[in-house]
């Protein structure tokens, strides 16, 4: 009961905060709301026994990425941003489509049957500790995806450099 209550609070807060992030007219307010949102997601990870992910969520997202966002936002002309129109004309259509999707998802999830649980049950993870289990599986079973991720990060770095490079003079 207690766990359910916490989940419902977190889920509701995440949805409301997400809506707030995209509806605030002041980008700085959006950023602050996003910070609160990230903390709620981290809390959700904690309830799922994923403490390591929760810590990463706070350190990487709330700590690093959001601060970067804030720097960028502060480079913008906030006064202009605040009067700029935030949505395109037919946004009610988008809301309607999203609500339709929600109905479909809720209806199909009614018949959802959870599949078999794997080797790493909560007990095993508790006994072995979170980080250790994650590290083990990441460097054995998921070694290949792990290596692919490194390529993705490399491309991201190259992309950032290319897009920030000086223009060639003719």
């Amino acid at each position, binding site marked *: 009961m207690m766990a359910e209550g916490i989940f419902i609070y977190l889920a509701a807060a995440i949805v409301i905060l997400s809506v707030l992030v995209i509806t605030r007219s002041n980008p700085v307010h959006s950023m602050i709301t996003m910070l609160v949102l990230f903390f709620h997601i981290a809390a959700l990870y904690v309830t799922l026994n994923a403490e390591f992910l929760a810590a990463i969520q706070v350190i990487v997202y709330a700590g690093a990425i959001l601060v970067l966002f804030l720097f960028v936002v502060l480079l913008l002309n906030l006064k202009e941003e605040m009067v700029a129109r935030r949505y395109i004309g037919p946004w009610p259509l988008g809301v309607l489509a999203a609500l339709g999707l929600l109905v479909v998802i809720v209806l199909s999830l009614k018949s959802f049957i959870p599949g078999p649980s794997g080797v790493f049950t909560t007990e095993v993870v508790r006994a072995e500790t979170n980080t250790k289990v994650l590290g083990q599986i990441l460097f054995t079973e998921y070694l290949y995806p792990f290596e*692919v991720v490194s390529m993705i990060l490399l491309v991201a770095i190259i992309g950032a450099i290319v897009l920030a490079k000086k223009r060639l003079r003719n």
Partner: protein
Amino acid sequence: MKILTEMPDVTALMPEIVMTCLALVLLMLDLFIRRKEITALLAIVIAAVVGFFLTGSSGTAFSGMFISDGYSSFFKLIFLVSLVLSVLISIRYIKIESVNFGEYYSLMLFSTLGMMLMASAGDIIVLYLGLELMALSLYVLAGFLRHDTKSNEASLKYFLLGAFASAFLLYGTSMIYGLTGTTNLKAIAHYLAANGVAHNPAVMLSVILFVVAFGFKIAAAPFHMWAPDVYEGAPTSVTAFMSVGPKAAGFAVFGRVFLTAFGGLQVDWAGILIPLAILTMAVGNILAISQTNIKRMLAYSSIAHAGYALIGLIAGGGNGVASMMNYLFIYAFMNIGAFGVVIMLRTEGFKGEEITDYEGLAKSHPLAAALMLVFMFSLTGIPPTAGFVGKFYLFMAAVAEGYTWLALVAVIFSAISAYFYLRIVMYMYMKEPKAEVALSTSAPHGIALAVATCAVLLIGVLPSGIIELARAAVAGF
């Protein structure tokens, strides 16, 4: 405690490993290369080396996460062909656009690597990562003309909508993972069949979410909105590249996921894909008619071609999938060929992207007009070009599986497409030139166009070789 005591067997992965290493070496070498033509040449050499390793690769690795079979190898061949052709037509073009950076070629290689990982994915996690690697490189390439706001817009639009599509893919994955407890495609199929949950609405929801995500990558209507803007704004050489390779990669994962993991649900997902294919052909062919910009027109045309290729997937079975792969292979040559001619019209200070720019091209530049004629005929599907062969086998496969009416609908839309393809031919041959149009030609560009033209005509006359190759590739699927 479980640790890796020995090196996992990676022989099946050799093409990907070679590609990764050489692409990284190229990235470093580029620092010392002044003439970027050499970088381009090295990129082509890398593609050739990877192609050489491709022939010896088969089997699975990393407990089924990586699958190298005929199916994946055929798609990788398409990716490498489109890579080489795109690099050849880029060399002069990116100089004219004054974005002659070596990273351009590295990013193309990384994008191709992502596609190769997608075609070989046996696990949804790897599939997703391959897709992101491909897409991330493309976002940067689409925005390569930093001084051009249209290119910026294309990049940002592609990025935002791509992220949106990824979210659908991940949501579908989480759904199927919750249901079956695995992300391995074969294990999913096995679990669905063994436990009688195949017709659970949650499975259908996950199928629909996958259709949305992959539909976005192949630019199928109603998930095509990004394509015209991105194709128009991106550098033309990148447009040529991303209208072929990533689309084929999208089809590769479409086929892999739907025929492996959801193989038992074919009736259900075919029911979703049929309206999608018809809508895609309708949107692509009808909206292409009203375009005045040739890049936008070719964007709608590429949407329409995704609709045709979907028919092969709907027909399913060895024949259907083989005809789809065969079509995508042919499409690579004819589409990059058409973009190759479009690029030639781009000279210093002249965009050459309006359809009216083609008026009287046959008088001023008969060879360029003749090449465009071949590609337009092929895209329409007029014999004796390869486009006809591709469509013929697609529609035959549909008829054989009992979708005669669907093949008829596709034929009707092909007839509509003749209007806007042949309009360009009409402009070139039956109108007087309005203004002097110069062409920017170069040797690599000529080679690319020659290869594309020869392939289109040769496959059009002697289709059996490529058909047999596609059939043999599917045999081991």
